């Protein structure tokens, strides 16, 4: 069981096996890369099938429903039935669509999410070790944006294009706070390598940078396009949004991409702010590190599902105001404060530094709250009907009836 302590032994064993079959060293390396890539890509793809079940079940419970419960125990086989159904659906291609781009969009959408994975460190010495990983994530994220733009445009449907435009405006707007928030862990770890960022988290960065963590998390939900930021599929306005003309497996790829992206946000949040694979015993047994990472990512993912089941959809002007007029300035201020304080406390130990940054974050948050309240008062007049105005319905609970016979 030596491979539990050093998973690279598996790779070595495979290499020897392939060499033993008479493959040349170069070909062996290539075969190993392909095998690794296949494993890393199919793992998340299969995991999505479970995620779909989990999310349907969780949202159903939040909404006081049962959720899938017919196929298999607890409806566990439901997603498999869905996959079979989607596979045998007719693949409708609109006559007026731009055929090539119409085919490319769903592929790009899912591939864009899968491509985030090679940068993720899965344990000590396993998984991504990319020197510019954080920017790599941002760069790969642009593929998803393009997929949506291409999907919306190629279908030649007004709703699809409207949905795509909205979505792209939303995605690029929320990318600004994300990129700003990502700068903070990079600054704290002095590296863009996610493996180094994990290694630097003797104290989880969420302690030193709670606001960037929150900004990253919220903006990422918007980037994925989930409730409450799911304007891309505001059914009452633009029907299904950019994927309105997609059916069968092509639609399923968008769907799978969205679910996997949501979970990937959980993984990235865990890596950047919650210590990644770190945990008791993870140094000695990297497999344990994988488990810790998965656990943290799953908890974050659960919060995303929870948010989805709880909040109503926001309006588009509110949506854009929220990122440009709140998250972005907030992220800029936090970034400056972190930069200054980090330089000032450079000689302090890990904990004092983290706690100092925590205090600064708290102060900024309180100031932001005060400012928000002020703006709130100016923007929204209280919703009370005034004489001469259009009446605003307001529910007033009936007065409790006085008991009779008094």
């Amino acid at each position: 069981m030596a491979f539990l302590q050093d998973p690279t032994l598996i790779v070595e064993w495979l290499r020897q096996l392939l060499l033993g079959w008479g493959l040349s060293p170069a070909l062996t390396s290539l075969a190993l890369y392909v095998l690794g890539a296949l494993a890393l890509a199919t793992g998340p793809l299969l995991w999505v099938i479970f995620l779909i079940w989990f999310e349907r079940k969780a949202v159903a419970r939040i909404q006081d429903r049962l959720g899938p419960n017919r196929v298999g125990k607890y409806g566990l086989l439901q997603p498999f039935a869905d996959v079979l159904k989607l596979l045998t659906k007719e693949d409708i291609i609109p006559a007026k669509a731009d055929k090539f781009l119409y085919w490319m969009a769903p592929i790009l959408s899912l591939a864009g999410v899968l491509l985030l994975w090679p940068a993720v460190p899965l344990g000590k010495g396993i998984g991504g070790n990319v020197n510019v990983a954080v920017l790599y994530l941002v760069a790969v994220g642009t593929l998803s944006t393009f997929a949506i733009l291409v999907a919306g445009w190629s279908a030649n449907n007004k709703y699809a294009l409207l949905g795509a435009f909205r979505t792209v405006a939303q995605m690029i707007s929320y990318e600004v706070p994300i990129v700003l928030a990502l700068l903070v862990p990079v600054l704290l770890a002095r590296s863009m390598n996610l493996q180094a960022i994990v290694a630097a988290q003797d104290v989880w960065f969420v302690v030193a940078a709670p606001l960037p963590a929150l900004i990253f998390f919220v903006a990422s939900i918007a980037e994925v396009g989930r409730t409450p930021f799911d304007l891309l599929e505001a059914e009452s306005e633009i029907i299904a949004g950019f994927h309105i003309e997609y059916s069968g497996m092509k639609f399923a790829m968008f769907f799978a991409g969205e679910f996997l992206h949501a979970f990937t946000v959980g993984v990235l949040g865990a890596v950047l702010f919650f210590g990644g694979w770190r945990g008791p015993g993870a140094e000695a047994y990297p497999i344990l590190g994988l488990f810790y990472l998965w656990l943290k990512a799953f908890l974050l993912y659960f919060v995303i599902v929870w948010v989805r089941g709880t909040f109503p959809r926001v309006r588009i002007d509110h949506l854009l105001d929220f990122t440009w007029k709140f998250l972005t300035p907030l992220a800029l201020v936090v970034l400056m404060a972190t930069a200054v304080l980090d330089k000032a406390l450079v000689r302090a130990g890990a904990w004092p530094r983290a706690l100092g940054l925590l205090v600064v974050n708290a102060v900024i948050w309180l100031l932001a709250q005060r400012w928000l309240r002020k703006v709130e008062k100016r923007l929204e007049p209280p919703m009370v009907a005034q004489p001469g105005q259009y009446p605003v319905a307001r529910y007033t609970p009936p007065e409790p009836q006085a008991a009779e016979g008094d």
Partner: protein
Amino acid sequence: MVTTFVFLLTAVVMLVAALIAVLKDNLVHAAMGLVVTLFGTAVLFVLMEAYFLAVAQVVIYVGAIAILIVFSIMLTRRVGAAWGAQTNPTWPFALLVAGLLTVLVTRMVRAWAPDQVLPAAAAVPADITARLGAALVDPNGYVVPFEVASVLLLAALIGAVYVAWGGRKAEKETHK
């Protein structure tokens, strides 16, 4: 060997994409061709082990500039239909100039390459990005261009917003 193969593949894809960008009369297709070309440039940077440059290329050119281009195409005219001719009457002269330039560059490269012993590629230091960052804000390095770039970008934003946007009121006036 592998590097050469990937380079050649990328080069062919980039050339085809560039031709699409220039020759297609469907503007969105042309824009997509441009995107592939820009992405290919990033692949070339990776081959040269300039990783930061590669991701920066994708983030800035593919992620921002290409989207801006696609947006502006969709904003300015009906893009579904083919629009106008792809060439103007002077195209033979342009072809001639381009051809001559190609010959010239090829000759120059051929004349130069055999005599030169290319220095062995130096190993890229591990902290290359950190060095870049330090050089950007080093008073003896590039601090002036760095700060000027920020002023330039600010000016670009002000100019662009000024030209494109008259404010909500003015915009409502023009749409009445």
